[in-house]
Structure formats: structure tokens, C-alpha cells
């Protein structure tokens, strides 16, 4: 199961692991592929999430993906990013390394777990 990181643990996560903020990629996440328009999940996966996951893995650390600070998320963006990550690295490794922080929409943690489980 992918861990979640609450607000009080954000600083702790910084100290113990790597943090990737989606808002650093874009404030306005788009659809799944580039053909859907700007800021697709596929681009976020390839240019941000996979490299960050590789770095965390080689450092023996966790990777906390911070979903806060954006305009919102379509399921296609999240599915492409996190199911795509799972198809690359495998469910066991993803669940071991990945953490999700989402204070504005806490239920996204559950959604992402589902995408990983169904990848």
C-alpha cells in the first residue's frame, strides 16, 4: 500500500526522503497524453516522476509526491502518471518507495492506490 503524508509530516518527509511537487511542473495539470493538450500526465511521468523515483530508489529513500498547490487533477493525468510508474517499476517497489501528500483533496490518495493496484 502506498503511504500518505499528512500536513504535520511534510517537514519530516523532507528530512527523511525526496519530495516532488507537481506544482513545480505545472499549476494546471492536463489530460493523459500530449495529444490531449498541455501539461499531460505522460510528460509529467517521463520528465519528472520517473527520474525522481529513480533518484529516490538509488538513494534508498522514499519519494513523496506533493499534489497540493495546483488547480486540480483529472483521473487521466493521475492514472497515466502513477499507473505508468507502476508499469515501469512494479507494484511492490512503487508501494515501498512512493508516498502521497494531498491535504486539499485527501481522497486522491485512495484514487492513486487504486490506479497502482489496477496498473
Amino acid at each position, binding site marked *: 500500500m502506498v503511504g500518505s503524508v499528512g500536513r504535520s509530516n511534510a517537514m519530516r518527509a523532507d528530512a527523511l526522503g525526496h519530495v516532488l511537487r507537481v506544482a513545480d511542473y505545472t499549476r494546471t495539470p492536463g489530460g493523459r497524453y500530449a495529444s490531449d493538450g498541455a501539461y499531460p500526465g505522460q510528460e509529467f511521468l517521463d520528465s519528472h516522476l520517473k527520474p525522481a523515483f529513480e533518484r529516490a530508489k538509488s538513494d534508498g529513500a522514499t519519494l513523496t509526491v506533493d499534489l497540493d498547490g495546483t*488547480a486540480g487533477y483529472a483521473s487521466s493525468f493521475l492514472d497515466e502518471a502513477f499507473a505508468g510508474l507502476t508499469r515501469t517499476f512494479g507494484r511492490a517497489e512503487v508501494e515501498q518507495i512512493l508516498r502521497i501528500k494531498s491535504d486539499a483533496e485527501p481522497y486522491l490518495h485512495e484514487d492513486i492506490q487504486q490506479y497502482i493496484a489496477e496498473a
Partner: protein
Amino acid sequence: MRSALHGLRRTQIRSLRRAARSSRSGRVVNPSTRAVEILAPSHFSIVDNPEETVAYLQTVRRALRSSDVRAALRGVQVVSPDALLALITYADALGSGQRLTGDLPLDDGARQAVETCGFAELVLGLERKGNRRGFVETASASARTGHQANAKLAEELVQRGCAAAGLPYSLVSYSNLIECMTNTNNHAAHEQGTIAWRLMVTWDEANQRLQFVFMDPGRGICRTVKLRFPQFSDDSELLRILLDPSVSALKKLWAGLPARTRTRQPGRGRGLRKIAQSLKRGSLRRVVVIANGAYVDVGAGIAARLKGHGFQGTLVFWEVGQVA
């Protein structure tokens, strides 16, 4: 005293007599403009009066294939933005030489609702295909059209709508808009074409409702999904399952399909489920989806078949209540 038909050609006389017979069903041909006038139902709303309103819209669409049409709204007493958006969308698909005009409701409340959503600018001023206007901005309504998922626009419209309503920013409304835009981009068009979506955000101050309406005049979500899940012949049952976020519904969707087919469907069907989930999570007040032969009001638990030829395209409607 000369007959009123004096001087007209035989074809014109036949046309007028046909029109006179049709006037019993609300269709009247105005000989001076050659436009067929079609009276809208007094409760002009797809989400609240689906049968009558969808039947009216289908009549307008069919009439537009062969003549100019005047969408007469003067008898409308209750109107919602979804019906107006559908008219605008069909007007936008006109061929050269076709014309859709209309008039405003006589009822004060209905007329105000029509005027404030920009319908007058978009339809009454629209004459030919090359003169499309996709942009409307009023104090309480925004209407746009486009292709693909326009993330910046989605954020802007949600911000504007929530500001007009005095509500916090609605994350789920942004999410829903992106879901709808990408669905249209990927699935609405026939063959290699593209379909433009159209959306409207309105703040109904009288009833204190912030409403989002999204529509595309494409194949309709039921028809496209049935290509992958042919075991469903009933559009309303299929749409109800697509909008059911429970695991059992997803299992029902996949039941009977070979595993090989399932693996080729990464992430299929999540968009509508997420929209429906946001209702159950208390982020939205109402969600209604109409597509092909189906009407589903998620919160009310209503899944109904539309009579006649059904609805052209897909329409998604939601109201913002408690905001995420």
C-alpha cells in the same frame, strides 16, 4: 378579394400547407423569412425536463438540415443553461447558408436567465457558419468552445464562476472539466475528425446555484464505450454503470470480456466515475449526464431511457455545493 396564396408557386403553396399542418405540433413556417419556427417547451431544461427538451432539440436539429430555423423561446417559463448550450452547440455546426435565430422568453425570470448567459449574443447574432462566436462573458456567465483539454481555460472559468458565486475555488470542477475535454478529444469524433466541445458556467443568483454545463455534439459516450463493451445494449444501464464508482459496477463492466481485452483498456472509464465520486464525496450538489439514449441523474439515482432518437452527443451537468 385575392387569395393569400395568389402569386405563389405550387411548391410554395404545398410548403405552406405542410407548415399549417405542422403548426399543430409547434412548427410554423414564416413565408417572409422562409424560416421554420419551432416553439420550445415551457420548461426548457434537459436536466429537469429531459424528454420534452431533448425531443425539441432533435426537432430543431432535423429541421436545420433543410431550412433556416427560428428557435422560439417566447413561451419558455423555466430554463436551464444546459438546454441553451445545446442550442448554441447545434447552431455552431451549421452549414453555409443555414441560419438559426430565435426570440427571448416573455417570462421575466426566464428572459433574464437567457440574457445573462449570453444566449442572445451567441444565437440571435449568429447567421452563418463562418460567423461563429464561441466567446461570451457576462457578469454571471461564461461560455467557451475549443478542442483538446485547455487547462488554463478550465482554471480561469472555475475561478471566475466561484468568484461570482462567492464560493471557494472548486478543485473538482476543474477536474471535471479536464475529464470532459479529454473525453471529447479522444472519443467524440467519428473516424479521423475532431469535435469541438462547448461549455458554460453560470451563476444563478436567484436560486443561488453555480452550474457547469459541458457538451460535445459527437458520437455520444454510450456509443463509443459500446465499441469496447458490446455486451450492453441498453444505453441507460451502461451509463448508470459508468457513473457508479463502486467496485461492483466496474466488475460488471468487465464481466464477460477476455483478460486480453481488459489489459488494452488502461484507465478506461475512470472519468465519469470520478465525476460521480465527487458527488458522493459531498463536493458537488448535483450531477446529470445525458448521452445517446440515456439520462442519468446520479444523486437522485435515476437512470432512464430517452424516447425517440435520443440525444446527439454527450452533455455533463453539475452544480457546485460543498466545495473541495
